[in-house]
Each structure stands twice: as structure tokens, then as C-alpha cells.
């Protein structure tokens, strides 16, 4: 009989975990998109050979412990303040690579001012924005991005637009600012989506290398625990409900809004 040792051999390897992910066990719920998003960002930094030149900023949210998993120098920021922290790092070390990794509550609620102004200044950083339409970490409360009618622990009868406001498309909003150079919306729920997101992250670091301004990647992701669904069901629900409201694809490329978004913003 074949032993596992006979299988785990150099020549049989088709995939290895990037050394920029630590061996710490991920704190995310099984099925959650955060882990995949982490891996993509770390793979890109690894493949570009930027480990020694990169500083990451972790948010407050489920990914508060990103520094446990990302094997680079990391700074944990207060809730919503990652863009300001990144500004402090980048302004004093303009030749280093700096990225923020933030959830939707962090980036689009408590940190809205920091988000808009970092984009407006066109700080030369990369922003990774995990939009799961909910506050995962604190137990599934309504986020600024929560869809109309979506049930959360603070909108138990569904989000009512009249009393609770509208879901915020912060990505379309910041794309309007001259300081943003590359703005895109991606996902990580299928191998094809992962490949596209990885390409986008590559491009984002390329933009940073060329000192062109903000590159902003929204990743629409699931929160199977917060949504109270199985991982598979949550991804189906995401495709069916989140994607129509948060459509996939580039919003701004090379500093120019892509056509479909120009139209959408007008209507």
C-alpha cells in the first residue's frame, strides 16, 4: 500500500502555500472568504519579491488578526483609521509598499472620512476592501453595505431603507475622486474569481510602484456565520443578491472611469 510519505514529494507538488502566510491556524470561520483574500495578497507580494519592502495595516473586524497570518511587518490600526495610519507610514517611507486591509464596517462606516480623504489625497497606497455586507466580528450587525431587506441582528426584520438608510456603494463614490487611479470590484468564491482578483492585486502593486495614486480593490465576500448560512449556500446567496447590487469588474482604470460606470453614476 502507498504511504502518505510516498505522495508528499517534491515532484508531486502542484501547489504550496506561500511562505508569506504563517503556519498559524486561521481564526476565520470555515468557508469564509477572508482567508482566501489574505492568501492572494501574500502570494502577490511574494511573487513580486516585496516582503522586505512592504508594511500592511490591519483593521478592526474579523481580520484584526491579519498580522497573525501575514508574514510581513504589520501595524494594527484602530477601527476605521487604517487609511490614516497608512498615510503616516507612506509619507515617511515613500519608497516602501503600503496596503490596508479593511472590512466594510471599518472602511465605509466608522472610517468613511479617513477613506474619502486618503483617496482624495491620492496617497500612493493599495486598499483591499472586504465587503461582506455585515459586521462579522461583533456578531452580525447591520453594516453600511447591508442590502435592502437583509436581516441582521440589528435589522432583525430586514433593512428598512427609510429608517436605516441605503446600502453605501463607497467604491463607486471614491472612484469619482481624482486621487484614485485603479478601482475594481472582485470576488474570491470560485477559482476563476480568485485568478481575476490576483491579477487585480498584481496591478494594484504595479500602480503603487509607479507612484500613480490609490489602487482600491473591493472584494465582495461571504460571511456565512453572520448570514447564518452554510458556506456553499452563502456563496450562492452572494451571487444571487450581492452581485446584482455590487457588480463585478473594473470601475476605474488608469485614472479613467470605465464607460459603464460613467453611465451608472449619472442615472
Amino acid at each position, binding site marked *: 500500500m502507498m504511504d502518505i510519505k510516498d505522495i508528499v514529494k517534491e515532484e508531486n507538488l502542484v501547489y504550496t502555500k506561500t511562505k508569506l502566510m504563517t503556519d498559524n491556524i486561521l481564526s476565520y470561520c470555515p468557508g469564509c472568504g477572508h482567508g482566501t483574500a489574505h492568501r492572494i495578497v501574500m502570494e502577490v507580494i511574494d511573487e513580486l519579491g516585496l516582503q522586505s519592502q512592504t508594511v500592511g495595516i490591519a483593521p478592526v473586524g474579523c481580520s484584526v488578526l491579519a498580522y497573525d497570518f501575514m508574514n510581513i511587518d504589520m*501595524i494594527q490600526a484602530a477601527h476605521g483609521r487604517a487609511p490614516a495610519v497608512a498615510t503616516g507610514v507612506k509619507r515617511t517611507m515613500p519608497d516602501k509598499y503600503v496596503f490596508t486591509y479593511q472590512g466594510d464596517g471599518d472602511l465605509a462606516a466608522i472610517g468613511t472620512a479617513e477613506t474619502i480623504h486618503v483617496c482624495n489625497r491620492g496617497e500612493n497606497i493599495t486598499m483591499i476592501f472586504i465587503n461582506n455586507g455585515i459586521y462579522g466580528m461583533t456578531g452580525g450587525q447591520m453594516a453600511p453595505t447591508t442590502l435592502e431587506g437583509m436581516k441582521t441582528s440589528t435589522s432583525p426584520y430586514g433593512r428598512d431603507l427609510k429608517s436605516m438608510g441605503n446600502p453605501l456603494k463607497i467604491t463607486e463614490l471614491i472612484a469619482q475622486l481624482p486621487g484614485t487611479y485603479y478601482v475594481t470590484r472582485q470576488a474570491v468564491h470560485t477559482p476563476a474569481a480568485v485568478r481575476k482578483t490576483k491579477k487585480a492585486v498584481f496591478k494594484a502593486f504595479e500602480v503603487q510602484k509607479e507612484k500613480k495614486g490609490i489602487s482600491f480593490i473591493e472584494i465582495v465576500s461571504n460571511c456565512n456565520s453572520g448570514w447564518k448560512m452554510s458556506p456553499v449556500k452563502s456563496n450562492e446567496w452572494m451571487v444571487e443578491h450581492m452581485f446584482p447590487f455590487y457588480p463585478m469588474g473594473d470601475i476605474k482604470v488608469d485614472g479613467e472611469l470605465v464607460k459603464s460606470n460613467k453611465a451608472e453614476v449619472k442615472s
Partner: protein
Amino acid sequence: MGELKLMKGNEAIAEAAIRAGVDAYFGYPITPQSEVIEYLMAEQPEERTGMVVLQAESELAAINMVYGAAAAGKKVFTSSSSPGISLYQEGISYIAGAELPCVIANVVRGGPGLGTIQPSQADYFQSTKGGGHGDYKLYVLAPASVQEMADFIQLGFDIAYKYRNPVMIQSDGMIGQMMEKVELADQRPRWTDEEIKQMHDSWAAFGKGDHRERNIITSLDLDSAKQEKHNHHLQAKYRRMEEEEVLFEEINCEDAEYLIVAYGSSARISMKSIDLARAKGIKAGLFRPITLYPFPMKQLNAYVGKVKGILSVEMSAGQLIEDIKLAVECNVPVKHFGRYGGMIHSPEEVLTALENLIKGE
């Protein structure tokens, strides 16, 4: 002798920051300290030393920019005034928790709320007793002259890096706005990237080399036992500061029967009051805490049995007085006097308060 100039306190602190080799200043305008960022913008320190100056969109952003740059091992300075410093508190708590060095100036104005733009010392509790959440301490310096505004920048950075702890310079609208002669220190070069690497490679986040593990700047530990240990470490640091870093000044205290205890502007005013008192035959001395935290507890306690009474003079409703009472362990009668809400007491008003204390009123 260094270069002599006639400057406002706010200008002196800004010029001293450039000369101390500071890497970055982040701030948001607020009276009575907007001259700090105005001076820096006009001076263009980017050209002089490469120092970065950035006007942030809010105090929330400014203090977090400080956090980021300090985390990268850079020398960072910021300034604000009371309402802005209230917004700084979240960031200051994180900075203290993550053990980052930086210098923060508070040019205090009258409160509460939007209050007034006139001088006040009513932020004593906020500076010395925490301000933000959690058990932490700032090293708090109280300048009483424009010269000290300038000098406390370098002193502040020395302490900030020695202890990896945020330092607060607490002045007020009077020291910030008044003009005096100041002797400026010579220009120090900014640290090079190589120097920063040599000094701070064990903790700062500027990019992980192959020779070391990644550096993580955080104040979080979900394991409460570890968080308690971290707190023990912080407390040990504060005890060390209390032992080694207390600063104070004594004027005419040797034969004093009565002491005025006052810091900053109130100490400046009280210098005149003790002269007036001595002219009337009252043996009065001035004890001036220069560090508000660590407070000169032992040094003031030495007057127990020697003086008959202490007058605490502060532009507040009475905050400093609590530390004085702790210092003398209620073995000396202590009274508070002070105008507040933006009003400044005169030397004569202080003298009257001292005479009332002597009369037992």
C-alpha cells in the same frame, strides 16, 4: 551659544521640532495653536531637512498618522488644543498600548465643550490621569516659558525613545501666544534609514528582512492573561519613570513657611506673587512641578513639617490640588486658587488667596 530669536511659544516649538531632526508633523488647525502648523508650512522643512508636514482632515486622522509613522520608527510630532486633544484620545491610548514613541503638544484652552480660545489649565486630569481608555500614562512636561517650549521638544523625544512611550507637552494659550527671547538648539540631522534600522529593528514596522521575524505593532491581545502581563510591563515602565524622570523647580523655598505650588503659566504668574508676598514679610516659596506625570511626590512630601500651608494655583477649578494632597498625605493644609474658563489670575489675586490661606479663611 545657539541662535537667539524673538518668537511666539507656538513658533518656537515648531522651529525646535525641525531642529530636533523630526521626520514628520501631522496636525489639524485649532486656536490657540494654529501657528505651529502655519509656521511649519511656511518654513518648508521638507527643503531644510526632509521633514514631512501634512494637514490632516481631522484630529482623528492626524493622531493615527502619528501612530503609523511612529510605528515605522520615525520621529513624529503633533500639536493641538483641548477639543482636538479630546479627539486624539483614542489614538493616544493605542499609541501607549502599542508602546510607540512620539511627542504631542496640547496648547490648552478653556472648556468644557468648545469653551473659549483663551488660556486654561483644565486639561490636567486628561493629561496625567489617562485621558483615553485603559491603564496607561503619558510623560507630561509643563513648560513655563517660550524657551521651555523649545527645549522640551528634544527632552520629550529623549524620554519618548528611552521608554517607548508617548510624551505630552502641556502648555496653554498664554505660553503658546506670548513672545519671548529663545535660544534655539543647533540643527540635528534626521536619522537615516540605516540608523533607524540599527536602533529600532527589534520592534519597528518598516519591512521585514530575512534576518528577523516580522514586527507587529498592536495593542491587542485576546488572551487576557497575556494582556495582564503586558499591563504589568507598562506599569513597571511607569514606576521607573516615577523613580528616574521627575523634574521640578524650587524658588525661594529654603526658608519658606508657605508654598505656592503651580506649573506652566500659573507658575510664571506666581513668581511675581511670591515677590509681592516677601515684600510684605510673608516667607513664601514657589514649588513648580515641571513633569506633571510623574508628579514630584517625594520632593513635595519633603516639605511636610516645614511649611504651614500650601496654595495650589491653577487655571482650573482644582485638578492639580489632588496630586498635591496625595504628595503631602494631608499632613499640610492645602487650598486651591485659580481663575478658569479662559480667565487668567493676576499676581495680586494669587497674593490675596495666599493671605487668606494664612488667615485660615
